[in-house]
């Protein structure tokens, strides 16, 4: 990679950020917007996490203690929605904003004003969603999968606000995705061919296409709900000639790609971090790209594996089972490549690497339970039990969330100009790691033993493991405040970070000074 044009000089001129709140309100700067996304997502993570702790507190013992069943359902629903749409997705968009331009040598995102708008929709969308908690009849209580007719005919009145909020989130995501694609396809520095792009950029390019493909489907689903509720249609109402199963097909046609939207950028993050701390280039770069693309394409033909119990015809059942099993192949390739990258490297274990290694191990465990779930006849026993809750938390928490933590520690020195406190970082890692496994591992057991999900009270034989899970959850939850402390501490000062930051780091972003100036790559670097 060639040297960077020093854009630092601009910084002291009149191109710097405006002062005060308007800087954030009007900003079109990808770094400001990236930071706002990340802060927003962290706040949502704490809000959604507190709801999870309400759930876990109620489930600490058999019997109803703290909340009533209807409020419990509101908590699971809001927790799921907030974590998926408010914590994970915005965090990755924040990382995309910060990193894609400085990884491909672009001065900013391709559509900066739209970028501002896609962020600022979010606080309103989630403000609206959270306000439903205070409405008459309460917040949505039909699960984050909002199956009709529980979410239409039988829903609380606040469902209309929920629909509007989902529309707003969808618009925000689609605009974000358009921006990512436009930036990657048009704004790469000379010499940065597609097959030279860092994997984080690749995974985001593919994710963005997924987003554009499926967010409109989600919008369609909620619009049909709106019509059923207020305008007398009967898409999902059996009494009117509609079909509740239709809702599930539409939802999961969105929903399955959605889970890859939450994990592909995480793959990208791991593929940046593991080579750095292995001091060895990523093994099998092209196969990583192809594997990501195959996963994305396959994700469109597996949706009904969430619907094995709805009574699909045998042929459909077999098709979706085989297609789902097939996804294990490219996913396996990715895991093997990460391990091969570490093999015969020269490893060190700074906090980002710890999170990345835990990501590979625990995500793989989630992948194993996913493979088990794909076997349709056995899924009859797993479906809608805590085994599924364990599965998707293994792929989402140590998967998506750990990769976000890894990314935060990895690039924080570049963002703030200071090293974070390594000791505290490691403490954050180990406490999270222990808390997470205590929380979610026992859920496999109670799930297999027959505990359904989304229940506020359970039979006595599930008591012991639930108690462990609840204790683990409180450990995991409180540990996240430590992360907040570490980040604030790092912003306020610390050991100065060099431009390179990490010995083994490679890529355009590491050619910029730390902290990265407000405007970077105003003139494109040349990539050999």
């Amino acid at each position, binding site marked *: 990679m060639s040297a960077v044009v020093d854009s630092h000089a601009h910084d002291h001129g009149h191109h710097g950020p405006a002062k005060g709140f308007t800087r954030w309100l009007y900003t079109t700067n990808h770094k400001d917007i990236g930071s706002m996304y990340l802060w927003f997502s962290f706040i949502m993570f704490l809000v959604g996490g507190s709801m999870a702790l309400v759930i876990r507190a109620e489930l600490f013992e058999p*019997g109803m203690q703290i909340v009533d069943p209807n409020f419990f359902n509101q908590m699971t629903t809001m927790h799921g929605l907030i974590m998926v749409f408010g914590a994970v997705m915005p965090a990755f968009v924040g990382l995309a904003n910060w990193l894609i331009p400085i990884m491909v040598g672009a001065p900013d995102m391709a559509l900066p004003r739209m970028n501002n708008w896609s962020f600022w929709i979010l606080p309103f969308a989630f403000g609206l969603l959270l306000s439903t908690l205070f409405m008459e009849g309460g917040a949505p209580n039909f699960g984050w999968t909002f199956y009709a007719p529980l979410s239409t005919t039988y829903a609380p009145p606040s469902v209309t606000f929920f629909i509007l909020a989902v529309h707003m989130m969808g618009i925000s995501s689609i605009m974000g995705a358009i921006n990512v694609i436009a930036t990657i396809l048009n704004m790469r520095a000379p010499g940065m061919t597609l097959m030279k792009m860092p994997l984080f950029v690749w995974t985001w390019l593919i994710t963005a296409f997924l987003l554009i493909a499926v967010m409109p489907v989600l919008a369609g689903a909620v619009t049909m709900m709106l019509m059923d509720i207020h305008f007398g249609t009967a898409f999902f109402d059996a009494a009117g000639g509609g079909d509740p199963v239709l809702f599930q097909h539409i939802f999961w046609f969105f929903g399955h790609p959605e889970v890859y939207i939450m994990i592909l950028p995480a793959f990208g993050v791991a593929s940046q971090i593991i080579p750095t701390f292995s001091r060895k280039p990523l093994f099998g770069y092209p196969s990583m790209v192809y594997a990501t693309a195959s996963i994305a394409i396959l994700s469109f033909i597996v949706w009904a594996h969430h619907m094995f119990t709805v009574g699909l015809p045998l042929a459909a059942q077999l098709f979706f089972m085989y297609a789902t099993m097939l996804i294990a192949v490219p996913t396996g*390739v990715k895991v093997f490549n990460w391990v091969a990258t570490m093999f015969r490297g020269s490893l060190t274990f700074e906090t980002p690497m710890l999170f990345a290694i835990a990501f590979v191990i625990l995500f793989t465990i989630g992948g194993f339970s996913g493979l088990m779930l794909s076997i349709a006849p056995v899924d*009859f026993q797993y479906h809608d039990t805590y085994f599924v809750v364990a599965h998707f938390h293994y792929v989402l928490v140590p998967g998506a969330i750990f990769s976000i933590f890894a990314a935060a520690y990895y690039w924080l020195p570049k963002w703030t100009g200071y090293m974070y406190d390594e000791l505290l970082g490691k403490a954050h890692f180990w406490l999270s790691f222990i808390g997470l496994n205590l929380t979610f591992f*026992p859920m496999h057991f109670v799930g297999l033993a027959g505990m359904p999900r989304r229940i506020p009270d359970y039979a006595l034989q599930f008591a012991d493991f639930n108690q462990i899970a609840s204790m683990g959850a409180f450990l995991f939850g409180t540990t996240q405040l430590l992360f907040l402390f570490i980040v604030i501490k790092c912003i306020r000062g610390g050991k100065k970070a060099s431009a390179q930051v990490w010995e083994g780091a490679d890529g355009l972003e590491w050619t910029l000074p730390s902290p990265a100036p407000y405007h970077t790559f105003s003139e494109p670097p040349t990539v050999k």
Partner: protein
Amino acid sequence: MLSRRHLMALALPCLTAPTSVLADWEVNMTPGVTDVSQAVFDLHMIIFWICVVIGVVVFGVMFYSIFAHRKSKGAVPAQFHESTTVEVIWTIIPFAILIGMAIPATGTLIKMYDTSDADIEILITGYQWKWKYEYLNEKVSFFSNMSTTQEQIYNFDEKGEHYLLEVDEPVVIPVGKKVKFLVTAADVIHSWWVPALAVKRDAIPGTVNESWTRVNEPGIYRGQCAELCGKDHAFMPVVVKAVSENEYQEWVLAKQELARQEFELNNKEWTMEELMARGEQVYQRACVACHQANGLGLPPAFPALKDSPVALGPMEGHIDMILNGVKGTSMQAFADQLSEVDIAAVTTYERNAWGNNVGDMATPKMVAERKGQ
């Protein structure tokens, strides 16, 4: 404090212990009591062990690198970063393993889908929050409600052994016979699940799903609704009682006789006291989940009946409300769920309980007339 049991259970290796030990710790799926559930369990264990083996290999290599190739030990990084051969190998091997998995899975699935030649057919309907069982040929039909008390749930009484997994009337089937389940729902989606039978079928309004079982051992098998269906989703258990063929036949006859007696009750002359007593029972069984024992409901979702304009208003309107429900809400039509006496009784009860004292009483005859309307 963690008890020893907790610590034992936490230890990962116990996952790999023999299954007989596992059963005590409730960490694994039940092999169940049918050939199909056994086949499902076997598939589950095969895929589990395959995952364990792959995990040991992959994590083995990884941990080896973590220990052997650390910079602090002076490891010098190799620079290899590509090998098509290796990539092809680790694409093909998993693919082959998956084909090996898919074959037995397909066989089991085909068996589970074969609902032909059933000896008994039971129509199962999910309601918010109870199950209705109708034996299509025997003309037996009844509702099955959870029998765990609110006092147990709200921690006033000690919880019983089968807390949340007990019902007032289990569904009875004979062992050794092929029983076909036709599963549907009256309001929202539910899911009828009994782990020991490996049967889980969604109960969907407007659709009738099919499944079947042939139980090998007599016994009581407990399960729960598996699809979120609203407030009391946790409180609609399924209990299956598998009995010998003879016992089953006796049970059917007794049920038919009971139905005749119930029907006779419609013609009996009832006193206010009798109706109030019966009404309270009916209310506890069929209405309490929504309208609450104190008649105050859970507004705005479920209205109070104390001081309700319907309960205090004209008798006809009140009976009609209970007979026909309100379409598009969880207030169901009880016309087909409760007998005429029961509707008369619960109507009377609602008009005269919790300080509602209209003072009048409904009769089975009035209910029959309103039904005719």
